[in-house]
């Protein structure tokens, strides 16, 4: 990896950018029930994450536009914060990363 670094962070510490790699597995389709369950969870959580991000972006736009009362901002913020925390728990439970929650739609690009 190091020889691909054109410009490292100012302090020189690359550790925060390194992530443990995990095997993608075999090149063959794996039909064991556990992987199928994980695959299904990944699909469902991807859709939930899509909706969460869309709603959060909409909320941020409305806050930027100044059209919400303090109480509404607080309530929205709490809702998104709790949803974010719950999504993180579910991802952990199924051994998924945030990057796993995306779908490649071929010519249409990525979902998120």
């Amino acid at each position: 990896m190091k020889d691909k670094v054109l410009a490292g962070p100012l302090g020189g510490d690359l550790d925060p950018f390194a992530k443990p790699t995990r095997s993608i597995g075999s090149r063959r389709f794996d039909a064991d029930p556990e992987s199928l369950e994980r695959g299904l969870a990944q699909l469902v959580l991807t859709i939930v994450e899509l909706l969460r991000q869309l709603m959060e972006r909409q909320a941020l736009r409305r806050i930027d536009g100044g059209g919400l009362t303090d109480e509404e901002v607080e309530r929205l913020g709490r809702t998104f914060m709790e949803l974010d925390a719950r999504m993180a728990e579910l991802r952990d439970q199924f051994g998924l990363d945030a990057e796993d929650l995306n779908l490649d739609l071929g010519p249409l690009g990525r979902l998120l």
Partner: protein
Amino acid sequence: MIELLAITDDATPPDPPLGAVRCGRLSVLWAPATEAALDADALWQREVLLEQLMERRDLLPVRLGTLVADERAACEAIAPRGEELARALERVRGAVELSVRALGASDDAPSPAPGEQTGREYLRDRLARDALAREVHAPLAAAARASVVLDGPEVLRAAYLVDRDEVDAFVARFRRLQHECSSVAMVCTGPWPPYSFAEEGDA
């Protein structure tokens, strides 16, 4: 079975065991398929292959794990997308992909639990994060032929399509930006094959 590596319009054959099959104006570069597990080493080996191929020709990397029966099947697979692939190849000609990742000060720390932050603070942090991402991305995008913001947990994860002879200038701009935005830790890697610019609709 053969594994497709890249699409090019350069007719120069690669060194064995790699092969190339001409399909109209395009060539598909391939490697004999292997059953080895897909781990970090396998990805790096493929990366090295693609970089060697990229030294002598412009190419579009094919999605990892694209296996077909033989050269004829390879041609059949790309034939319906010939025009689109030729346009994509034109888009990346003479350019490489550079990747930038930017981490905010709080990225190392676990997310605050819902009780530790008010809803207003949470949203304010999100807005600040978005603003920071724009601040880093905009000047780099201006120095690139094309750019795409990718999904990731960082403040910014983005890919930039940069002319080969503009790479040094891009890196110099990146270094200046590191000083201007000292609240984020940033790393720039590359040059990579144009992974993020091979599909139409990107950039």
